[in-house]
């Protein structure tokens, strides 16, 4: 797979998936990350390894604005500095015990991470986005990207008259695995943002947000519509490699995606 170096901003989860007081794990190639959010609502992305005996910190628990390792209870503050070693309450934890940090940003309903240099400009997608879902696709990210770039995915959406329109997906913005689809005449949503996390040589997580149109009461419908479309995207990407032809499937079973007959590949 491509070098998953986290050298550019990479989506690692939906903001809503890491609620205050919880921790979870994300993989980006060889990078094993713990993502957690304290009661202060700040999200942190760290190396998923306790400096004590190497336990995954994603098994740990959050109390207030601290993360505690579930193995022997070493506790870390929001900057990754150890503040407590329960077996040695008399000992001030050595300053050197500090967990490796990743740069992180929250934008468009998505948590982004990058290694090192804070100088990088954080991702920016104007407007009010809400997280839809994350979906695992059992193919490497470059394969998912090339499907998007080919314009092969068609997103259907109803306009205000209930007419179904179909739009070919826009190519990736800059080859960083982020795809934005703008819809001008849908009454459900204005835009869909799909950000790929290269988990491994065989798996991608797509983190997807939408800019819904209309009243909040309608948002559920928009999210479900996009989620159904994503399931079809997953089927299409995975079946292509397996040589299963999607074209033969009755249209009623695949309401959103049509394959263009002239698409490359």
């Amino acid at each position, binding site marked *: 797979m491509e070098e998953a170096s986290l050298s550019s901003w990479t989506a690692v989860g939906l903001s809503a998936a890491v609620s205050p007081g*919880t921790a*979870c794990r994300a993989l980006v190639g060889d990078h094993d990350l713990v993502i957690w959010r304290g009661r202060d609502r700040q999200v942190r992305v760290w190396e998923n390894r306790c400096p004590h005996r190497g336990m995954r910190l994603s098994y740990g*628990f959050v109390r207030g604005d601290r993360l505690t390792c579930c193995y022997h209870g070493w506790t870390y503050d929001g900057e990754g500095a150890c503040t407590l070693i329960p077996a040695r309450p008399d000992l001030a934890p050595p300053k050197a015990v500090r967990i490796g940090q990743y740069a992180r940003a929250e934008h468009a309903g998505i948590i982004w991470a990058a290694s090192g240099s804070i100088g990088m400009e954080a991702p920016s997608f104007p407007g009010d986005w809400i997280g839809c*879902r994350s979906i*695992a696709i059992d193919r490497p990210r470059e394969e998912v990207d090339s499907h998007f770039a080919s314009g092969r995915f068609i997103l259907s959406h109803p306009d205000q008259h209930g007419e179904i329109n179909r739009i070919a997906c826009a190519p990736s913005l800059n080859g960083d695995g982020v795809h934005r689809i703008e819809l001008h005449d849908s009454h459900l949503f204005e835009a869909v943002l799909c950000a790929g996390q290269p988990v491994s040589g065989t798996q991608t997580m797509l983190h997807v947000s939408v800019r819904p149109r209309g009243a909040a009461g309608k948002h*559920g419908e928009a999210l*479900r519509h996009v989620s159904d479309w994503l399931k079809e995207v997953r089927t299409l990407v995975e079946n292509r490699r397996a040589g299963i032809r999607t074209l033969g499937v009755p249209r009623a079973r695949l309401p959103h995606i049509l394959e263009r007959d002239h698409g490359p590949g």
Partner: protein
Amino acid sequence: MKLYDYVLSGNCYKIRLLVRFLEIECEIVAVDFYPGREHKSAAFLGINPLGQIPVLEDDGLVIRDAQAILLYLANKYDGHGRWWPSGDPRLVGEVTMWLVFADRITATSSAARMHDVLGYDLDVGAARAGARSVFRVLEDHLTDREFGGHEWIAGPAPTIADIACFPYTALAHDGGIDLSPWPAIRRWLRRFTNLPGFFTMPGIDHIRR
């Protein structure tokens, strides 16, 4: 009432959970599953010819299969019909569908765990791949449920379908299956561990969040 039980069995744990949720009395009979293989002894095969646990004995009735036992206990002892909403045909259909689905989780995720934890000789790659396709179905379902504002597998409240699907999903990591690709599943697990009366079994993390 007697439950033939093994501490490390997720299927037996389903029954112990419902017994606790319904606050009923039940005697626990420990079966030496590993290493004793007592479930394959002549005496035990007399109780369950399939040589499997859990088995429940109540009033001279012998029932095997965790899902069947859940149905029996909920019908008999859940006066409110909370865990088995028998008055609503739609819910009966849905809950039953997910009860049957739970056995697929056992066949895949539990098999991978038997290999990793108890050294069973089986194709662990196939078991893990099977578990991943089963969890994908559960993830898509729970995602849709959340869009509709629902937190449980079927209906407005937890049912025996949630109990049946919980143990071998929560124990997946014991079989080398990482749950990070399925965020809706992880949220549902967390909700389950926060149910009043919930208690854990070895391998299931219970930190109140």
